[in-house]
């Protein structure tokens, strides 16, 4: 009985000491870890060319082709509109064509960027990396100004599908067409 009690006490004391030590280390490292996670999450958003320092960013996860929606709320609401950035994935010549498309509260496409893809070098890959699809300024859900590139129909269709999917989601998010 006494032996059991002593063993329990030893483990209790050790647990308390270890717990306190870990809480101190956690106190010191947690803010840095959070900062790193934040920076990583929003790293791809910087590629859109939007000045992120002027916005507070919150994100929500969805299921389906659009996996994440970042809500960019302007710090100064008088000069900047609310923007939603959609991370959308479709299939071109290969699976996993991931784009980020930024749409403002007037349903105007503010910016878009291809985050990752598996398209063929020399064809779809070149189109995604060099071709301008002329969608900045388009008012969704109207995608008629979309400019495809010859010989890369499958890739261009996948990109257009990204915009179409975002148009549907943005219509829901921003409360219908203006």
């Amino acid at each position, binding site marked *: 009985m006494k*032996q059991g009690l002593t063993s329990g006490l*030893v*483990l209790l004391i*050790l647990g308390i000491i*270890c717990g306190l030590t870990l809480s101190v*280390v956690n106190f010191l*490292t*947690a803010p*840095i870890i959070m900062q*790193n996670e934040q920076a990583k999450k929003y790293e791809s958003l910087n590629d859109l060319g939007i000045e992120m320092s002027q916005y507070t960013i919150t994100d929500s996860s969805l299921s389906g082709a659009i996996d994440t929606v970042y809500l960019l709320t302007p710090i100064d609401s008088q000069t900047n509109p609310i923007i939603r950035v959609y991370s959308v994935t479709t299939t071109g010549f290969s699976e996993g064509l991931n784009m980020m498309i930024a749409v403002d509260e007037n349903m105007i496409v503010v910016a878009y960027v291809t985050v990752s893809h598996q398209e063929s070098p020399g064809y779809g890959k070149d189109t995604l990396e060099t071709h301008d699809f002329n969608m900045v300024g388009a008012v969704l859900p109207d995608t008629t100004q979309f400019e495809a590139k010859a010989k890369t129909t499958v890739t261009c269709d996948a990109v257009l599908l990204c915009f179409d999917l975002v148009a549907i989601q943005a219509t829901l998010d921003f409360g219908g067409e203006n």
Partner: protein
Amino acid sequence: MTAKENFFKGFVKENPLFISALGMCPALAITKSIENAIGMGIAVLFVLVFSNLLVSLITMNPKIREKVMPVRIPVYIVLIASLVVIVEMVMEAFLPDLFETLGVFIPLIVVNCIIFGRAEAYAGDHKPLESVVDGAGMALGFTGAIMIISLIREVLGAGSITIWGNIKLDLTFIFDFLGIEPISMFLQPVGAFFTLGFILAAIAAIQNAKKNKTSKEVSK
């Protein structure tokens, strides 16, 4: 045993990986690049040195030793687990890329046989300084061993050596000279088994040759 012998025994004579075959999981899983091996080595070094030190300090005092001995296994596990969590948090904060690459193998240091084995077999019966020296030697021996595996795998599999971050030594010219491509199989898990298997076979062959030589000399 002198301090020097104590320190260097983990390098070759009692190498935890190549001789005792301990810590095989990380040795097979994370040895895709030298950078990973160095990162894992630093983590193991920290945990092993401090676990040996703490275990030795706890068991040094006869009164405390008497109370701890019946529950020494959970005590060692709690100590090792706490040290591993500290390494995990520090690495996640300051080396996030390496933390992501090493992934689950950082928490798995808790169940790495080297750490527990040294605590049970050595630190529990030796003085703190001797235990620290033993821990450092064993950890560096383990680091050296996984670096050798990484070197072979990375050179054969990728044709380069990643020293740290973007610092890379490109060796593709050797493959170009030989007119062959790097063998990507070596970057797969199967490559780790092959590499470790060949190294262990080579060590066994050397040991057998030495034994034969000694027995011949004795019989003469």
